Protein backbone atom coordinates (compact mmCIF):
# COMPACT_ATOMS: atom_id res chain seq x y z
CA UNK A 1 0.00 0.00 0.00
CA UNK A 2 1.32 3.37 -0.91
CA UNK A 3 1.64 5.63 2.16
CA UNK A 4 -0.79 8.53 2.26
CA UNK A 5 -1.43 11.71 4.21
CA UNK A 6 -4.52 12.54 6.21
CA UNK A 7 -6.48 15.73 6.58
CA UNK A 8 -9.74 16.30 8.43
CA UNK A 9 -11.34 19.54 7.22
CA UNK A 10 -14.24 21.00 9.16
CA UNK A 11 -16.10 22.63 6.30
CA UNK A 12 -17.24 21.68 2.82
CA UNK A 13 -15.23 24.52 1.34
CA UNK A 14 -12.05 23.31 2.96
CA UNK A 15 -12.68 19.76 1.82
CA UNK A 16 -13.40 20.78 -1.75
CA UNK A 17 -10.24 22.87 -1.83
CA UNK A 18 -8.16 19.91 -0.67
CA UNK A 19 -9.72 17.68 -3.30
CA UNK A 20 -9.23 20.26 -6.00
CA UNK A 21 -5.58 20.69 -5.05
CA UNK A 22 -4.71 17.00 -5.05
CA UNK A 23 -7.12 15.92 -7.75
CA UNK A 24 -7.19 12.25 -8.57
CA UNK A 25 -4.61 11.49 -5.90
CA UNK A 26 -7.03 12.36 -3.10
CA UNK A 27 -10.15 10.61 -1.92
CA UNK A 28 -12.77 11.50 0.66
CA UNK A 29 -12.79 9.16 3.65
CA UNK A 30 -16.03 8.48 5.47
CA UNK A 31 -16.35 5.04 7.08
CA UNK A 32 -13.30 3.66 5.32
CA UNK A 33 -14.81 0.20 5.05
CA UNK A 34 -14.29 0.15 1.29
CA UNK A 35 -11.58 2.76 0.80
CA UNK A 36 -9.05 1.40 3.27
CA UNK A 37 -9.51 -2.13 1.99
CA UNK A 38 -8.93 -1.00 -1.60
CA UNK A 39 -5.87 1.02 -0.64
CA UNK A 40 -4.38 -1.92 1.20
CA UNK A 41 -4.99 -4.27 -1.70
CA UNK A 42 -3.32 -1.85 -4.08
CA UNK A 43 -6.49 -1.50 -6.14
CA UNK A 44 -6.24 2.21 -5.57
CA UNK A 45 -3.41 4.61 -4.76
CA UNK A 46 -3.81 8.01 -3.17
CA UNK A 47 -1.53 10.63 -1.68
CA UNK A 48 -4.19 12.05 0.60
CA UNK A 49 -7.35 10.93 2.32
CA UNK A 50 -9.72 13.72 3.21
CA UNK A 51 -11.69 12.70 6.28
CA UNK A 52 -15.12 14.23 5.85
CA UNK A 53 -16.55 13.12 9.17
CA UNK A 54 -15.88 16.44 10.88
CA UNK A 55 -18.00 18.45 8.46
CA UNK A 56 -21.33 19.26 10.13
CA UNK A 57 -23.51 19.00 7.00
CA UNK A 58 -22.26 15.51 6.33
CA UNK A 59 -23.25 14.29 9.76
CA UNK A 60 -26.79 15.59 9.83
CA UNK A 61 -30.00 13.68 9.59
CA UNK A 62 -32.97 15.97 9.18
CA UNK A 63 -36.52 14.94 8.51
CA UNK A 64 -39.51 17.04 7.67
CA UNK A 65 -42.89 15.49 6.89
CA UNK A 66 -43.27 17.63 3.77
CA UNK A 67 -39.69 18.24 2.64
CA UNK A 68 -38.52 14.77 3.31
CA UNK A 69 -35.28 13.36 4.66
CA UNK A 70 -31.73 14.57 4.24
CA UNK A 71 -28.96 12.22 5.28
CA UNK A 72 -25.42 13.50 5.42
CA UNK A 73 -22.93 11.47 3.43
CA UNK A 74 -20.91 10.61 6.52
CA UNK A 75 -23.75 9.32 8.66
CA UNK A 76 -22.91 5.79 9.74
CA UNK A 77 -25.41 3.05 8.94
CA UNK A 78 -25.70 2.19 12.61
CA UNK A 79 -26.74 5.75 13.41
CA UNK A 80 -29.16 5.86 10.50
CA UNK A 81 -30.76 2.59 11.54
CA UNK A 82 -31.48 3.86 15.01
CA UNK A 83 -33.04 7.14 13.94
CA UNK A 84 -36.77 7.05 14.72
CA UNK A 85 -37.88 9.17 11.77
CA UNK A 86 -35.90 7.14 9.30
CA UNK A 87 -37.23 3.92 10.75
CA UNK A 88 -40.77 5.16 10.56
CA UNK A 89 -40.73 6.76 7.14
CA UNK A 90 -37.99 4.96 5.16
CA UNK A 91 -38.02 1.31 6.14
CA UNK A 92 -36.48 0.22 2.84
CA UNK A 93 -33.45 2.34 3.61
CA UNK A 94 -33.20 0.52 6.92
CA UNK A 95 -33.58 -2.80 5.07
CA UNK A 96 -30.44 -1.94 3.17
CA UNK A 97 -28.39 -0.08 5.73
CA UNK A 98 -28.87 -2.81 8.32
CA UNK A 99 -27.38 -5.53 6.13
CA UNK A 100 -24.20 -3.85 4.96
CA UNK A 101 -21.76 -6.08 6.83
CA UNK A 102 -22.38 -6.74 10.48
CA UNK A 103 -22.71 -4.27 13.36
CA UNK A 104 -19.00 -3.39 13.40
CA UNK A 105 -19.07 -2.47 9.73
CA UNK A 106 -22.31 -0.59 10.23
CA UNK A 107 -20.65 1.34 13.01
CA UNK A 108 -18.50 3.01 10.36
CA UNK A 109 -19.94 2.36 6.89
CA UNK A 110 -22.17 5.03 5.39
CA UNK A 111 -24.80 4.98 2.67
CA UNK A 112 -22.95 7.93 1.16
CA UNK A 113 -19.83 5.85 0.96
CA UNK A 114 -21.76 2.88 -0.35
CA UNK A 115 -22.96 5.10 -3.16
CA UNK A 116 -19.60 6.67 -3.92
CA UNK A 117 -17.89 3.29 -3.89
CA UNK A 118 -20.23 2.50 -6.78
CA UNK A 119 -19.99 -1.24 -6.55
CA UNK A 120 -22.55 -2.99 -8.75
CA UNK A 121 -23.64 -4.77 -5.59
CA UNK A 122 -23.97 -1.72 -3.34
CA UNK A 123 -26.93 -2.63 -1.15
CA UNK A 124 -27.92 0.90 -0.25
CA UNK A 125 -28.22 2.04 -3.83
CA UNK A 126 -31.31 0.26 -5.18
CA UNK A 127 -33.22 1.23 -2.04
CA UNK A 128 -32.29 4.85 -2.67
CA UNK A 129 -33.11 4.64 -6.36
CA UNK A 130 -36.61 3.27 -5.95
CA UNK A 131 -37.71 5.97 -3.50
CA UNK A 132 -36.41 8.64 -5.84
CA UNK A 133 -33.46 9.92 -3.83
CA UNK A 134 -31.25 12.74 -5.05
CA UNK A 135 -27.60 13.38 -4.28
CA UNK A 136 -26.28 16.79 -3.31
CA UNK A 137 -22.78 17.19 -4.68
CA UNK A 138 -20.41 20.02 -3.79
CA UNK A 139 -17.54 21.29 -5.91
CA UNK A 140 -15.53 24.45 -6.38
CA UNK A 141 -18.41 25.96 -8.35
CA UNK A 142 -21.07 25.27 -5.75
CA UNK A 143 -23.53 22.42 -5.33
CA UNK A 144 -25.55 20.40 -7.79
CA UNK A 145 -28.21 17.72 -7.57
CA UNK A 146 -27.84 14.30 -9.17
CA UNK A 147 -30.57 11.64 -9.17
CA UNK A 148 -29.21 8.54 -7.46
CA UNK A 149 -29.94 6.30 -10.42
CA UNK A 150 -27.48 8.25 -12.57
CA UNK A 151 -24.81 8.70 -9.92
CA UNK A 152 -22.88 5.50 -10.63
CA UNK A 153 -21.51 5.26 -14.14
CA UNK A 154 -19.40 2.08 -14.08
CA UNK A 155 -18.02 -0.29 -11.45
CA UNK A 156 -16.18 1.97 -9.01
CA UNK A 157 -16.92 5.11 -11.00
CA UNK A 158 -19.36 7.93 -10.39
CA UNK A 159 -20.30 11.30 -11.86
CA UNK A 160 -18.14 13.00 -9.24
CA UNK A 161 -15.34 15.12 -10.62
CA UNK A 162 -11.91 14.98 -8.99
CA UNK A 163 -12.74 18.11 -7.05
CA UNK A 164 -16.22 17.18 -6.01
CA UNK A 165 -17.66 15.37 -3.04
CA UNK A 166 -21.00 13.98 -1.98
CA UNK A 167 -22.54 16.09 0.76
CA UNK A 168 -25.88 14.47 1.42
CA UNK A 169 -28.72 12.44 -0.02
CA UNK A 170 -32.24 13.76 -0.10
CA UNK A 171 -35.29 11.56 0.04
CA UNK A 172 -38.73 12.83 -0.87
CA UNK A 173 -41.31 12.66 1.89
CA UNK A 174 -43.14 9.37 1.81
CA UNK A 175 -46.57 9.51 0.26
CA UNK A 176 -49.58 7.88 1.79
CA UNK A 177 -50.25 4.40 0.41
CA UNK A 178 -46.67 3.98 -0.67
CA UNK A 179 -44.20 1.40 0.46
CA UNK A 180 -40.73 0.20 -0.41
CA UNK A 181 -38.63 -2.85 0.31
CA UNK A 182 -35.08 -3.99 -0.37
CA UNK A 183 -33.87 -7.60 -0.32
CA UNK A 184 -30.77 -9.35 -1.47
CA UNK A 185 -29.56 -12.88 -1.82
CA UNK A 186 -26.39 -14.04 -0.10
CA UNK A 187 -25.24 -17.58 0.64
CA UNK A 188 -24.63 -17.03 4.37
CA UNK A 189 -26.79 -15.21 6.88
CA UNK A 190 -24.76 -12.04 6.84
CA UNK A 191 -21.38 -10.57 5.96
CA UNK A 192 -21.60 -11.38 2.25
CA UNK A 193 -21.67 -9.17 -0.82
CA UNK A 194 -25.01 -9.48 -2.59
CA UNK A 195 -25.19 -12.09 -5.31
CA UNK A 196 -28.24 -10.18 -6.47
CA UNK A 197 -30.43 -7.53 -4.88
CA UNK A 198 -33.78 -5.97 -5.63
CA UNK A 199 -35.52 -2.88 -4.37
CA UNK A 200 -39.13 -2.07 -5.09
CA UNK A 201 -41.32 0.92 -4.41
CA UNK A 202 -45.05 1.07 -5.06
CA UNK A 203 -47.71 3.70 -4.75
CA UNK A 204 -51.20 2.32 -4.38
CA UNK A 205 -54.54 3.89 -5.00
CA UNK A 206 -56.46 4.93 -1.90
CA UNK A 207 -58.45 1.72 -1.94
CA UNK A 208 -55.22 -0.25 -2.40
CA UNK A 209 -56.74 -1.97 -5.40
CA UNK A 210 -54.37 -0.53 -7.94
CA UNK A 211 -50.70 0.25 -8.30
CA UNK A 212 -50.53 3.82 -9.50
CA UNK A 213 -46.75 4.08 -9.61
CA UNK A 214 -43.82 1.74 -9.12
CA UNK A 215 -40.07 1.60 -9.37
CA UNK A 216 -37.77 -1.40 -9.33
CA UNK A 217 -33.99 -1.29 -9.02
CA UNK A 218 -31.46 -4.12 -9.01
CA UNK A 219 -28.06 -4.73 -7.46
CA UNK A 220 -25.19 -6.92 -8.63
CA UNK A 221 -26.63 -7.76 -12.04
CA UNK A 222 -25.22 -4.96 -14.16
CA UNK A 223 -22.11 -2.76 -14.13
CA UNK A 224 -23.99 -0.36 -11.88
CA UNK A 225 -27.10 -0.65 -9.74
CA UNK A 226 -29.86 -0.62 -12.26
CA UNK A 227 -33.22 1.12 -12.42
CA UNK A 228 -35.38 -1.40 -14.26
CA UNK A 229 -37.71 1.07 -16.00
CA UNK A 230 -39.86 -1.32 -17.94
CA UNK A 231 -40.34 -3.61 -14.99
CA UNK A 232 -41.59 -0.79 -12.79
CA UNK A 233 -43.71 0.69 -15.55
CA UNK A 234 -45.39 -2.64 -16.18
CA UNK A 235 -47.09 -2.46 -12.79
CA UNK A 236 -48.79 0.88 -13.29
CA UNK A 237 -52.54 0.54 -13.45
CA UNK A 238 -52.51 -3.08 -12.38
CA UNK A 239 -53.85 -4.68 -9.27
CA UNK A 240 -51.10 -5.77 -6.91
CA UNK A 241 -51.37 -9.48 -7.70
CA UNK A 242 -48.91 -12.28 -8.11
CA UNK A 243 -49.47 -12.15 -11.88
CA UNK A 244 -48.48 -8.51 -11.97
CA UNK A 245 -45.44 -9.22 -9.86
CA UNK A 246 -44.48 -12.10 -12.11
CA UNK A 247 -44.67 -9.91 -15.19
CA UNK A 248 -42.52 -7.26 -13.54
CA UNK A 249 -40.07 -9.93 -12.46
CA UNK A 250 -39.80 -11.20 -16.01
CA UNK A 251 -39.07 -7.74 -17.33
CA UNK A 252 -36.53 -7.18 -14.59
CA UNK A 253 -34.80 -10.43 -15.51
CA UNK A 254 -34.62 -9.23 -19.08
CA UNK A 255 -33.20 -5.87 -18.04
CA UNK A 256 -30.48 -7.46 -15.96
CA UNK A 257 -27.03 -7.90 -17.48
CA UNK A 258 -25.37 -10.19 -14.95
CA UNK A 259 -21.94 -11.70 -15.23
CA UNK A 260 -20.62 -14.91 -13.73
CA UNK A 261 -17.96 -14.46 -11.08
CA UNK A 262 -16.70 -15.93 -7.86
CA UNK A 263 -19.99 -15.08 -6.14
CA UNK A 264 -22.47 -16.48 -8.62
CA UNK A 265 -23.14 -17.57 -12.16
CA UNK A 266 -24.95 -15.52 -14.75
CA UNK A 267 -27.88 -17.93 -14.80
CA UNK A 268 -28.16 -17.92 -11.04
CA UNK A 269 -28.17 -14.15 -10.86
CA UNK A 270 -30.73 -13.76 -13.58
CA UNK A 271 -32.97 -16.26 -11.87
CA UNK A 272 -32.54 -14.55 -8.51
CA UNK A 273 -33.60 -11.23 -9.99
CA UNK A 274 -36.98 -12.74 -10.71
CA UNK A 275 -37.32 -14.23 -7.24
CA UNK A 276 -36.17 -11.12 -5.42
CA UNK A 277 -38.27 -8.70 -7.44
CA UNK A 278 -41.39 -10.65 -6.57
CA UNK A 279 -40.45 -10.77 -2.93
CA UNK A 280 -39.55 -7.09 -2.87
CA UNK A 281 -42.85 -6.18 -4.49
CA UNK A 282 -44.80 -8.24 -2.01
CA UNK A 283 -42.97 -6.49 0.81
CA UNK A 284 -43.44 -3.05 -0.72
CA UNK A 285 -47.17 -3.63 -1.13
CA UNK A 286 -47.48 -4.82 2.43
CA UNK A 287 -45.74 -1.71 3.62
CA UNK A 288 -47.98 0.43 1.45
CA UNK A 289 -51.01 -1.15 3.09
CA UNK A 290 -49.48 -0.83 6.54
CA UNK A 291 -49.02 -4.56 6.86
CA UNK A 292 -45.27 -5.02 7.25
CA UNK A 293 -43.47 -3.30 10.04
CA UNK A 294 -40.05 -1.78 9.82
CA UNK A 295 -37.40 -4.20 10.94
CA UNK A 296 -37.02 -3.17 14.51
CA UNK A 297 -33.30 -3.63 14.57
CA UNK A 298 -33.82 -5.35 17.87
CA UNK A 299 -35.25 -8.70 16.93
CA UNK A 300 -34.93 -8.43 13.23
CA UNK A 301 -35.08 -11.35 10.89
CA UNK A 302 -32.40 -11.18 8.23
CA UNK A 303 -33.97 -9.31 5.38
CA UNK A 304 -32.96 -11.40 2.45
CA UNK A 305 -36.24 -12.89 1.52
CA UNK A 306 -37.02 -15.91 3.60
CA UNK A 307 -39.52 -18.40 2.28
CA UNK A 308 -42.11 -17.00 -0.07
CA UNK A 309 -42.94 -13.74 1.47
CA UNK A 310 -41.22 -10.40 1.20
Amino acid at each position, binding site marked *: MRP*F*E*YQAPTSIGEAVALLADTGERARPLAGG*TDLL*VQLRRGLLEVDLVVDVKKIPELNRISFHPVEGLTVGAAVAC*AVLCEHPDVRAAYPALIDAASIIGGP*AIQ*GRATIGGNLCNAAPSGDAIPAMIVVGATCTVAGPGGTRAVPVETFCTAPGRTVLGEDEMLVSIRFPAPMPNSGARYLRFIPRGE*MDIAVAGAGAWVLLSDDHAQITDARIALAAVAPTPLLADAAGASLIGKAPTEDAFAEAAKLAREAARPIGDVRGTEAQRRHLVGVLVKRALRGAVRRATGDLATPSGRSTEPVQGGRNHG
Partner: protein
Amino acid sequence: MANKTRVCARVNGEQVEFLCEPYQSLLECLRDILGLTGTKDGCNDGNCGACSVLLDGQLVNSCLVLGVEIEGREVTTVEGLADWRGLHPIQLAVVEEDAVQCGYCTPGILIAAKALLDREPNPSERRIRTWMAGNLCRCTGYDKIVRAIMRAARSCAQYDPPLYNGRNKARR
Protein backbone atom coordinates in the same frame (compact mmCIF):
# COMPACT_ATOMS: atom_id res chain seq x y z
CA MET B 1 6.39 12.35 3.54
CA ALA B 2 5.45 14.59 6.44
CA ASN B 3 6.23 13.93 10.07
CA LYS B 4 4.23 11.51 12.09
CA THR B 5 1.02 12.70 13.69
CA ARG B 6 0.66 13.07 17.41
CA VAL B 7 -2.55 11.52 18.66
CA CYS B 8 -4.07 12.05 22.08
CA ALA B 9 -6.96 9.83 23.11
CA ARG B 10 -8.38 7.80 25.95
CA VAL B 11 -7.81 4.09 25.77
CA ASN B 12 -9.39 1.87 28.39
CA GLY B 13 -10.01 4.87 30.56
CA GLU B 14 -6.44 6.18 30.45
CA GLN B 15 -5.06 9.17 28.58
CA VAL B 16 -2.58 8.05 25.99
CA GLU B 17 -0.38 9.90 23.57
CA PHE B 18 1.44 8.39 20.63
CA LEU B 19 2.99 9.15 17.28
CA CYS B 20 1.84 7.33 14.19
CA GLU B 21 1.82 7.52 10.43
CA PRO B 22 -1.45 8.67 8.90
CA TYR B 23 -1.85 5.38 7.10
CA GLN B 24 -1.48 3.18 10.16
CA SER B 25 -4.69 1.55 11.30
CA LEU B 26 -5.99 1.85 14.83
CA LEU B 27 -5.35 -1.88 15.10
CA GLU B 28 -1.65 -1.36 14.34
CA CYS B 29 -1.45 1.53 16.75
CA LEU B 30 -3.05 -0.41 19.55
CA ARG B 31 -0.87 -3.46 19.04
CA ASP B 32 2.47 -2.16 17.85
CA ILE B 33 2.65 1.29 19.43
CA LEU B 34 0.60 1.04 22.61
CA GLY B 35 1.52 -2.60 23.22
CA LEU B 36 -2.09 -3.65 23.65
CA THR B 37 -1.85 -6.95 21.85
CA GLY B 38 -5.17 -8.28 23.10
CA THR B 39 -6.93 -7.01 19.97
CA LYS B 40 -6.12 -9.35 17.12
CA ASP B 41 -5.55 -9.17 13.38
CA GLY B 42 -7.39 -11.96 11.58
CA CYS B 43 -7.90 -10.54 8.13
CA ASN B 44 -7.20 -6.79 8.14
CA ASP B 45 -10.21 -6.12 5.92
CA GLY B 46 -13.25 -6.07 8.16
CA ASN B 47 -14.44 -9.61 7.56
CA CYS B 48 -13.63 -11.46 10.75
CA GLY B 49 -14.18 -9.16 13.73
CA ALA B 50 -11.04 -10.26 15.59
CA CYS B 51 -10.00 -6.61 15.76
CA SER B 52 -13.29 -5.37 17.25
CA VAL B 53 -13.02 -2.45 19.67
CA LEU B 54 -15.45 0.15 20.98
CA LEU B 55 -14.91 3.67 19.66
CA ASP B 56 -16.91 6.09 21.79
CA GLY B 57 -19.01 3.09 22.71
CA GLN B 58 -19.67 2.13 19.08
CA LEU B 59 -18.59 -1.29 17.89
CA VAL B 60 -16.06 -0.99 15.06
CA ASN B 61 -13.37 -3.03 13.34
CA SER B 62 -10.16 -1.33 14.38
CA CYS B 63 -8.48 -2.49 11.17
CA LEU B 64 -10.76 -0.12 9.29
CA VAL B 65 -10.18 2.91 11.50
CA LEU B 66 -7.03 4.98 11.11
CA GLY B 67 -5.02 5.67 14.25
CA VAL B 68 -5.23 9.39 13.59
CA GLU B 69 -9.01 9.21 13.65
CA ILE B 70 -9.19 8.52 17.37
CA GLU B 71 -7.86 11.95 18.32
CA GLY B 72 -9.83 13.15 21.31
CA ARG B 73 -11.94 10.02 21.40
CA GLU B 74 -12.40 7.02 23.64
CA VAL B 75 -11.43 3.46 22.79
CA THR B 76 -12.21 0.32 24.74
CA THR B 77 -10.31 -2.87 24.07
CA VAL B 78 -10.44 -6.28 25.71
CA GLU B 79 -7.79 -5.12 28.15
CA GLY B 80 -10.26 -2.57 29.43
CA LEU B 81 -13.12 -4.89 30.30
CA ALA B 82 -11.95 -6.21 33.63
CA ASP B 83 -11.12 -3.83 36.40
CA TRP B 84 -9.11 -4.13 39.57
CA ARG B 85 -12.03 -5.91 41.19
CA GLY B 86 -12.34 -8.68 38.69
CA LEU B 87 -13.68 -9.83 35.35
CA HIS B 88 -16.56 -8.21 33.53
CA PRO B 89 -19.68 -10.40 33.49
CA ILE B 90 -19.20 -11.18 29.83
CA GLN B 91 -15.66 -12.40 30.49
CA LEU B 92 -16.81 -14.46 33.42
CA ALA B 93 -19.66 -15.95 31.41
CA VAL B 94 -17.30 -16.96 28.62
CA VAL B 95 -15.04 -18.66 31.16
CA GLU B 96 -17.90 -20.42 32.88
CA GLU B 97 -19.56 -21.64 29.69
CA ASP B 98 -16.21 -22.88 28.34
CA ALA B 99 -16.80 -20.65 25.33
CA VAL B 100 -13.13 -20.17 24.60
CA GLN B 101 -10.88 -22.66 22.85
CA CYS B 102 -7.93 -21.17 21.01
CA GLY B 103 -9.00 -17.75 22.25
CA TYR B 104 -7.98 -15.79 19.18
CA CYS B 105 -11.48 -14.58 18.33
CA THR B 106 -12.31 -14.12 22.01
CA PRO B 107 -11.29 -10.48 22.48
CA GLY B 108 -13.38 -9.44 19.49
CA ILE B 109 -16.27 -11.60 20.65
CA LEU B 110 -16.20 -10.04 24.12
CA ILE B 111 -16.18 -6.50 22.78
CA ALA B 112 -18.97 -7.23 20.31
CA ALA B 113 -21.02 -8.93 23.00
CA LYS B 114 -20.53 -6.02 25.36
CA ALA B 115 -21.66 -3.64 22.62
CA LEU B 116 -24.82 -5.68 22.22
CA LEU B 117 -25.61 -6.00 25.90
CA ASP B 118 -24.95 -2.30 26.44
CA ARG B 119 -27.78 -1.61 24.01
CA GLU B 120 -30.10 -4.53 24.52
CA PRO B 121 -30.05 -6.11 27.94
CA ASN B 122 -32.14 -9.10 26.99
CA PRO B 123 -31.48 -10.21 23.44
CA SER B 124 -32.98 -13.37 22.02
CA GLU B 125 -30.75 -16.14 20.71
CA ARG B 126 -31.60 -15.09 17.17
CA ARG B 127 -30.65 -11.51 17.89
CA ILE B 128 -27.37 -12.61 19.44
CA ARG B 129 -26.48 -14.73 16.43
CA THR B 130 -27.34 -11.91 14.05
CA TRP B 131 -25.28 -9.39 16.00
CA MET B 132 -22.34 -11.75 16.35
CA ALA B 133 -22.26 -12.77 12.69
CA GLY B 134 -19.43 -10.33 12.14
CA ASN B 135 -17.19 -12.21 14.58
CA LEU B 136 -15.86 -15.38 13.05
CA CYS B 137 -14.91 -18.27 15.28
CA ARG B 138 -13.42 -21.41 13.84
CA CYS B 139 -13.03 -23.46 16.99
CA THR B 140 -16.24 -23.45 18.97
CA GLY B 141 -19.04 -23.66 16.44
CA TYR B 142 -20.53 -20.66 18.33
CA ASP B 143 -22.83 -22.70 20.55
CA LYS B 144 -21.10 -21.98 23.84
CA ILE B 145 -20.41 -18.40 22.85
CA VAL B 146 -24.10 -17.77 22.37
CA ARG B 147 -24.86 -19.45 25.69
CA ALA B 148 -22.23 -17.32 27.37
CA ILE B 149 -23.75 -14.13 26.01
CA MET B 150 -27.18 -15.19 27.22
CA ARG B 151 -25.71 -15.96 30.59
CA ALA B 152 -23.95 -12.62 30.67
CA ALA B 153 -27.20 -10.87 29.83
CA ARG B 154 -28.67 -12.28 32.99
CA SER B 155 -25.74 -11.18 35.12
CA CYS B 156 -25.04 -7.86 33.40
CA ALA B 157 -28.30 -6.59 34.74
CA GLN B 158 -26.87 -6.89 38.21
CA TYR B 159 -23.32 -5.95 37.39
CA ASP B 160 -21.62 -3.68 39.76
CA PRO B 161 -19.98 -5.68 42.48
CA PRO B 162 -17.11 -7.89 41.49
CA LEU B 163 -18.25 -11.40 40.76
CA TYR B 164 -14.87 -12.96 40.49
CA ASN B 165 -12.10 -13.18 42.99
CA GLY B 166 -8.92 -15.13 42.48
CA ARG B 167 -8.03 -17.61 39.80
CA ASN B 168 -10.83 -19.81 38.65
CA LYS B 169 -12.96 -19.30 41.69
CA ALA B 170 -16.29 -17.56 41.50
CA ARG B 171 -17.17 -15.78 44.69
CA ARG B 172 -20.74 -16.48 45.69
